[in-house]
């Protein structure tokens, strides 16, 4: 079935489900609206009959004026192509939608997130608990009528900054803020129970004892984290151990949650750019690109990117990928117990890349380099020569050295081969992306599958490995560094002269509509879902964070493995908590 038959009018989907599916007629929207009752049926047909087997993003939007909650699904084919968008609309007061976890297990965390932040109930979800907010939080913060403590105004810029300029520290005004709501019974902490914590352990036990009947052996519940150096941040894995073997595992996250999306809805379009740097703080250039892409899609012809800027974007994003993978490989070895020698050899090279970012964008990590229609500034004199020296001379040498250093090492191999295996079917079902997906034998790379920017002009291979274990997830990163270097060598050779940004207005106005911009970040598909109502601030701003959704498959990879390997498996997914917790 071709792409055209899906978009054609009437499309295959409409003829197949005449009374359940209709085209989304709102201006600027391009998907289909599905009856909530028929959602599972439609999704199953999409997966089994039409090839849309990859559920990329699930999120909710609160249309308060129409008194509706909308759940938006983005489907893709794992063989490549454009997206298919489904939307389910339910009344705000009774926001209940059937859960897709049974059809697409990758919806698990995303549905929990939508429940947590928007209060949309997913019927049939096996473990619908809060995921990012704390256990006793009252209210649903992404609903439009929810206001945060120290609330000033709905939208920036705030009126009290200018021309009145009454400066104060917010903490001095009101110690607790105005809008703090506590859950019922919270006033007496002695009687208040962390119910969700009990449910977590109950579910874990249930998972661990599945199919064991009365012969269940004695098991131990262990919490790995949240404060543990191996978890790459503040992240917790609640684990049931059967001897040394993992019987069940649940990730617990949200310790670094700051409601990036609510902040994003208060911000103007331009304000959001430096905030995206702080998602995956190791690869801010890619984060910038995803967001710029989503806004440029909405802007239409006004968002056309200049030629030189397109090249600069590719150069910066690929340098970011190299630096991120160097970091990931180095710290995977740390997780294996090879303390700091390999990781320092790897991140030493990263240092030279960060110097380039600093000279160009002004900061080593929080680059804030992209603008709508280009990049903020051109390369300063001498920097292109530096990049050329790195990508043609130093980095290829150093990658080969790293390869020689680690790849054949018998200890590394015996610790990683056959550990944490994820089959290709599972990888697709669990919506795994990036190196995790490609190490499982699915050659899916957005730069090829759904090209953006000018990636269609470059000659490179999609790195793919077939065992799906930790070793392959290590080695695929080395492969990807080599491919990135190939792209870079072509880009620095053919970069044209010219302007990098034609217009740079500070008050960007975006036509109404929705858009989903996605890039192949170093960690996988990074998507931004935007809904604009034509004002200066996004109506809805959602980030599809690759490391967050890759964690859905963590349990699948870990069950049956030894407890000592859990840390390695987590390391091989390469998470950054700034992005997981948002």
């Amino acid at each position, binding site marked *: 079935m071709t792409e055209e038959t899906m978009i054609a009018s009437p499309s295959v989907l409409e003829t197949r489900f005449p009374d359940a599916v209709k085209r989304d007629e709102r201006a600027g929207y391009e998907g289909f609206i599905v009856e909530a009752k028929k959602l599972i049926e439609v999704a199953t047909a999409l997966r089994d009959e039409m090839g849309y087997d990859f559920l990329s993003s699930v999120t909710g939007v609160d249309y308060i004026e129409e008194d509706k909650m909308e759940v938006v699904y983005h489907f893709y084919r794992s063989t490549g192509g454009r997206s298919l968008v489904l939307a389910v609309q339910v009344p705000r007061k009774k926001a209940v939608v059937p859960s897709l976890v049974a059809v697409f297990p990758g919806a698990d965390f995303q549905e929990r997130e939508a429940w947590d932040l928007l209060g949309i109930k997913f019927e049939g979800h096996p473990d619908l608990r809060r995921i990012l907010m704390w256990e006793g939080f009252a209210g649903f913060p992404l609903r439009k009528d929810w206001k945060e403590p120290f609330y000033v105004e709905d939208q920036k810029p705030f009126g009290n*900054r200018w021309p009145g300029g009454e400066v104060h520290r917010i903490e001095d005004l009101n110690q607790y803020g105005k809008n703090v709501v506590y859950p019922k019974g919270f006033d007496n902490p002695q009687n208040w129970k962390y119910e969700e914590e009990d449910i977590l352990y109950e579910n874990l036990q249930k998972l661990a004892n599945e199919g064991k009947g009365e012969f269940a052996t004695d098991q131990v519940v262990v919490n790995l984290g949240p404060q543990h150096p191996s978890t790459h941040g503040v992240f917790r894995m609640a684990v049931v151990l059967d001897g040394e073997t993992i019987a069940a595992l649940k990730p617990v996250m949200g310790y670094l949650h700051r409601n990036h999306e609510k902040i994003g809805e208060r911000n103007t379009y331009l304000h959001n750019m430096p905030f995206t740097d702080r998602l995956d703080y190791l690869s801010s250039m890619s984060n910038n690109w995803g967001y710029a892409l989503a806004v440029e899609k909405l802007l239409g012809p006004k968002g056309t990117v200049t030629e030189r800027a397109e090249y600069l974007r590719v150069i910066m994003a690929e340098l970011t990928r190299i630096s991120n993978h160097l970091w990931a490989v180095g710290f995977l070895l740390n997780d294996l117990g090879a303390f700091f020698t390999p990781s320092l050899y790897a991140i030493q090279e990263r240092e030279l890349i960060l110097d380039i970012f600093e000279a160009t964008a*002004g900061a080593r990590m929080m680059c804030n380099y992209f603008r709508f229609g280009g990049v903020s500034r051109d390369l300063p004199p001498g920097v292109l020569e530096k990049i050329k020296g790195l990508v043609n001379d130093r980095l290829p040498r150093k990658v080969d050295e790293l390869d020689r250093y680690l790849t054949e090492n018998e200890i590394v191999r015996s610790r990683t081969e056959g550990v944490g295996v994820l089959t290709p079917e599972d990888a697709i079902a669990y919506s795994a992306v990036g190196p995790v997906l490609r190490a499982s034998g699915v050659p899916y790379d957005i730069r090829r599958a759904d090209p953006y920017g000018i990636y269609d002009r470059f000659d490179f291979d999609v790195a793919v490995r077939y065992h799906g274990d930790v070793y392959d997830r290590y080695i695929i990163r080395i492969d990807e560094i080599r491919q990135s270097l190939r792209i870079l060598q072509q880009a620095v050779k053919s970069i044209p002269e010219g302007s990098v940004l034609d217009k740079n207005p500070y008050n960007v106005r975006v036509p109404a509509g929705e858009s989903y911009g996605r890039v192949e970040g170093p960690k996988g598909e990074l998507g931004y879902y935007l809904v604009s109502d034509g004002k200066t601030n996004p109506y809805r701003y959602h980030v599809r964070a690759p490391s967050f959704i890759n964690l859905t498959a963590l349990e699948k990879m870990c069950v049956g493995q030894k407890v000592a390997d859990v840390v390695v498996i987590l390391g091989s997914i390469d998470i950054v908590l700034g992005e997981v917790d948002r």
Partner: protein
Amino acid sequence: MYGKGIVKGLLVTAKHFFVSYFDDLKWIGRRYYKPAGLEHRSSKDVKGIFTVQYPEERVAVPEEFRFVPFLVYDVQEDGSHQDRCTSCGICAKVCPPQCIWIEQTSHPETGRPVPEPVEFFIDIDICMNCGYCAEYCPFDAIKMDHDYELASFDRHAKHIFNKERLSKPAEYYAGIRPENFGREEAIRLEKEAKKAAADKAKAEKAAAKADAAAE
């Protein structure tokens, strides 16, 4: 052969170990505490360790490096300070974390806004060093600094910088960002020349008109 991979890896480690000494010997007396040595250590040709002995030696920050903003003033011929800021409020509007507060006043008689801020505050605890204020300022009045050593013993009052603390002369700006400064000066001079030419043409026209009227 089992163990070959480990041996290969150890050879790499050994190479790193010896090379750092070779590089030290090759650059003996020049590698540390000298600008040339520092440059070598952050170039692609470095072989040994990268370590910079901060604070005894500091990496020279590139021109585009950005840290907490400052306000630029021009020193007039009579020695007085002329703020470039006109309190238009664009920086306060584009500031993503909204850490800029500007107090504008109006002339007591005419009621029109005075083109100089009465007060200007930046809460540097909130500032995220994104550089938008400098990028979007139409008067080149606010720029990003290079001074990254801002530690203080008091985290309350001292971290809200006022106009006095923020103001720095244009010479300082020219010192830290010579390229940018040169570019902006060129544009400004060009604009001024254009304006002067337009004024001159206008005056001539008016004079001609007056002459015609007199005749």
